[in-house]
């Protein structure tokens, strides 16, 4: 090889705008599993009902070479309109929502409540022995929150995966 390849693995958020046709998600997911790429999270929904387009946001990790391949392979899929890497192409804003259930009593319950306020999490369900928190933020913030809840009686987590959009006035 000509250049000393950069072997550092990094997390990337990639948006794929696709035609909302049958099987399109299977194509994208099959590409990742078939070629041995990693999916850390995946978010999919129709974004324009009249244009029949859906947006798939994939968080993946890899060396720069692998990420370049992932983008090129995604662009090759027939129903793909556009592929944008929010980590390298354009600055993007990323948000993820998680519902986090914590069960416990006494000091631990008070501490969970105190931390949730620091993280601006909302309480969406309460019993005498449990809370369900709703937290929104970048994946790192959500990770941190969950880690802090672990010793305080964490019982369940449901995460949406990342939604991402570019900064500034332009579309994707």
């Amino acid at each position, binding site marked *: *090889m*000509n250049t000393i*390849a950069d072997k550092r693995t990094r997390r990337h958020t990639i948006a794929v705008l696709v035609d909302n046709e*049958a*099987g399109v998600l*299977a194509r994208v997911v099959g590409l990742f599993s078939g070629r041995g790429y990693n999916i850390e999270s995946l978010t999919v929904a129709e974004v324009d009902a009249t244009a029949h387009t859906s947006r798939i946001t994939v968080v993946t990790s890899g060396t720069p*070479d692998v990420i370049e391949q992932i983008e*090129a392979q995604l*662009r090759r899929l027939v129903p793909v*309109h556009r592929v944008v890497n929010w980590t390298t192409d354009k600055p993007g804003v990323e948000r993820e929502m998680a519902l986090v259930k914590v069960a416990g009593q006494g000091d631990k319950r008070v501490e969970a409540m105190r931390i949730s306020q620091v993280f601006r999490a909302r309480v969406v369900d309460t019993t005498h022995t449990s809370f369900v928190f709703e937290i929104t933020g970048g994946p790192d913030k959500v990770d941190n929150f969950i880690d802090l809840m672990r010793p305080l009686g964490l019982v369940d987590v449901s995460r949406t995966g990342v939604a991402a959009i570019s900064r500034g006035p332009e579309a994707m």
Partner: protein
Amino acid sequence: MDKDGMMNRLAEDVVTLSGAEMVIRALKDQGVAHIFGYPGGAVLPIYDALFAVEGLTHVLCRHEQGAVHAAEGYARSTGKPGVVLVTSGPGATNAVTGLTDALMDSIPLVVLTGQVATHLIGNDAFQECDTVGITRPCTKHNWLVKDVNDLSRVLHEAFQIATTGRPGPVVVDIPKDIQFKKGAYVGPESVSHRTYRPKTEPELGSIVRAIELMAAAERPVFYTGGGIINAGPEASRLLRELVRTTGFPITSTLMGLGAYPASDPQWLGMLGMHGTYEANLAMHDCDVMICLGARFDDRVTGKIDAFSPNSKKIHLDIDAAQINKNVRVDVPIVADAAKALKEMLHFWKTQRRKVNAPALKDWWKQIEEWRGKKSLSYRQSNSVIKPQYAIDRLYELTRDREVFITTEVGQHQMWAAQRFKFEGPNHWMTSGGLGTMGYGLPASIGVQVAHPDALVIDIAGEASVQMTMQEMSTAMQYGLPVKIFILNNQYMGMVRQWQQLLHGGRYSHSYSEALPDFVKMAEAFGCVGLRAEKPGELDDKIREMIDVKRPVLFDCRVDPKENCYPMIYSGAAHNEMVLSDAGDETPEVTEEGKMLV
């Protein structure tokens, strides 16, 4: 069409047809003259529509895999898409090997599969399988058509996607009720795809940078592949012009043979695992590599981190995903090969570029030295037919006519690639990427369908040919005089060779036990069976084979223990070639190399 129908058409320019009729109409509108297929319950309406049709010939194969390989042979020898029609369930699953083969080798195919009726899908109905699910990873694209009004559009898109950009196979899965339903037919011209836009025009900046590198090169080499063949005859012509204009040496992959004439002095022979010494050393030592329509496959590069360590690399490919996939390159050009070659020639001439003649002269001197090794030589015998000798004779005795060669997979394939000299594109059909035993016989049938008067030869191995042998029956039915030239070494020779080199000579299950009598077998099919056992009788038998205007199975008994050289062992670099197993300097395969296929 009745009067009302006609009025309708005039009024709205819409034709109402059943789904099955649409299939036939779309094939005709796409200029399809031949389809390869096999019927079954889920495609009966389409077969019914085929019954009385004119101008569209259906070739009934004996297995759906055979039908797909035949369509591949047809496509590769004509540049047109191959078309296949098979039933649901086992019909579709039997087609999967052929689809994967076509995907790996970028062969344009349109494969139509029947499916159970839409209301039964997901019910585990008789002969139901998830065809689009199963074929998603082995097609360029596929569709399940659930509305008859989408059918004609999808069929035309299927042809467009199969044949443009990097070509490949596509599948259109058509439920049986859709074949009966009536709907609106649209012609090919009214279809434009929403997202599919293959990039074919080169960026001129990269063309200019490529030219600069080439002009400054001291030790250049062209490394070309199947992309040149796929880009059409014009790409081969332009390649010849560019290679001759520069005077640079040229080598090619297995897939690219024929794009440049093998008789030309600038031709170094094939490169890669069983490539020539001069081709591989030129690749290793070059300072500028011009890769055109090839993809740095592991069979070509050998040990990847020792691959051509000191060269600047230009890489032309129509598929952007090939750039920097295995090897990082300096000048990528994403474009159609013919268009890019045309621009390269244009800039070379208008910028009055000159090569570095003194350096090139030294380079050629070095290459001639390597050539002097005669890496394809072998020890001739008077008593047994050497497989290399058989190929040489086959070439010599057929070179005065138009000959198309297909192959199976194994040693015979490599010997054919090394020794048969191809002068033009589209005359060499072999399973490169997938390495599918059983490809060559049905592929030869497809070639012969497209070229009824040409000499079509499948250079086969006795093991491979048994995988799709039943297609001899197809050859008989349609009067296709294909010649199946079996280099019968009574071994899965390539497996035996690897067992000798990597597994201590323990020949586990690689002996072709209980072989059929191929001559009797030919006769049972109604074909002609010939056998040659001694070098002295070979020429006469080959002549006899050529002269018979019927399908022939030729049982050519060759030396069972001959190995295919030269060879780059798995995990070794281009400059670590082994020329024969005669010498005592035969290196060991590394532990790392043993892991590789």
